[in-house]
């Protein structure tokens, strides 16, 4: 228990260092742009592929569970739309990003720690925590909502492709379904969740990497911990935020 509380304390102390005034904003700006590319743009591919197939599968499952003629055909599109917006494009995409981006952040910072690159920054008088972590947090918190929007669009498109391609419903029914009873707040809810999840992924993973002690084995362990802890926290906050935002 004491170890757990110590870790929580260290995490918040690290955040205190991270959110201090940058030494040279222009250098931080360049670093943030670099992180937009590495953590944001480079994630578009995997998010697109996963979202497409998630949308397709959700559509097919909805179709097979609503075969009874009592259910209108447009429910297939509606089911896909709401599943993507409410859960898949925010939570499931965040879990996937925890694997890709979280392990990337943790291993990058962890390797810098064990190869004394972080010590080199400290010796120069640079706030290493802020220089290394703040741009990653900014990049993910700003860019991940765009990934969520891409995921929603691609997922719904994937659903349409499955629907029309496999003939489970007509294109008109599906398009009517995705427009039916649309609640714009669901998008806001999804984006708010994404911002929280992005912060969890980047800060928890950076924390795991920043305090690595040892060698390559420990860097690997830190990456694994980063993914596991981020995923658990995402699921926990998913419940809390859903209760807060939708109740």
């Amino acid at each position, binding site marked *: 228990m004491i170890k757990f509380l110590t870790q929580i304390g260290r995490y918040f102390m690290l955040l205190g260092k991270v959110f201090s005034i940058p*030494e*040279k904003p*222009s*250098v931080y700006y360049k670093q943030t742009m670099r992180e937009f590319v590495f953590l944001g743009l480079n994630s578009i591919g995997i998010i697109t592929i996963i979202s497409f197939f998630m949308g397709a599968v959700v559509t097919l499952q909805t179709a097979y569970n609503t075969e009874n003629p009592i259910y209108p055909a447009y429910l297939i599109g509606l089911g896909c739309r709401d599943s993507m917006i409410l859960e898949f494009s925010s939570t499931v995409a965040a879990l996937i990003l925890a694997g890709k981006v979280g392990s990337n952040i943790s291993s990058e910072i962890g*390797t*810098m720690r064990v*190869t*004394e*690159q972080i*010590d*080199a920054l*400290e*010796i*120069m*008088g*640079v706030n290493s925590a802020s220089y290394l972590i703040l741009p990653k947090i900014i990049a993910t918190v700003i860019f991940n909502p765009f990934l969520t929007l891409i995921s929603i669009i691609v997922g719904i498109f994937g659903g349409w492709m499955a629907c029309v391609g496999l003939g489970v419903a007509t294109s008109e029914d599906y398009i009517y379904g995705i427009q039916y009873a649309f609640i714009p707040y669901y998008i806001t809810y999804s984006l708010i969740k994404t911002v929280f999840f992005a912060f969890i992924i980047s800060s928890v993973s950076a924390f795991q990497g920043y305090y690595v002690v040892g060698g390559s084995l420990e860097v690997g362990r830190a990456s694994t911990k980063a993914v596991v802890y981020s995923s658990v926290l995402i699921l926990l906050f998913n419940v809390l935020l859903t209760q807060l935002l939708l109740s």
Partner: protein
Amino acid sequence: MITINHLYKSFNGHNVLEDISVVFEPGKTNLIIGQSGSGKTVLLKSIVGLHDIDSGEIWYEDKLFNKLDFTSKKEIRKEMGMLFQGSALFDSLTVEQNVIFPLEMFTDKTPEEKIDRVNFCLNRVNIKNANKLFPAELSGGMRKRVAIARAISLNPKYLFCDEPNSGLDPITAILIDALIKELTEEYSMTTIVNTHDMNSVMEIGEKIIFISEGVKCWEGNKNEILNSDCEKLNDFVFANSLAKKLRASK
């Protein structure tokens, strides 16, 4: 000048450094020698503030470094350069970007001035046509020299070198030693070098302290080290069979 008074450092109740007192003078290459695990690196990292000490004083000129707040420490750190055992170059940056990094962070020079300074520093350590290469593309000796170029880019008053010769062949090691000595004299830096390489000791040891099991056992220079009465130092200096024969023949 760096002055250490009665420095103690422990990890988990185990004393690593005990009552270390020493003065490191400017314009000289000051060496900390000792066996692996003797506490050399802990001492060096304590001096630069990477480890918090248990008790004692670390003075940089007239400033008590270990009692300064974070902001004041940062000001002194801008006057430090450090060469790490593994070079610690930033993997994701090119040679040029590595050397320019401290300039971008702490100066308001124009881009042209920064590039001029980078090229000057790289020339000074005999690195040519490597500006656009990444650290992974360099040999061990080149990496050390680029790390020295980065360390001197802000004209530091204090230069710290942790095992600068580790992993290098004897000829390259001597070149790195000579470079450190030249730069120390040229810029009147207070240079502290951690080493267990006797070639370095005999080449550049203007002031040497010997540490054994966390305790300072001997202090002197390269001319005095061969005639010491310190048994532990003699065991260290005359460790190999050739040296033992030479000592016996004296």
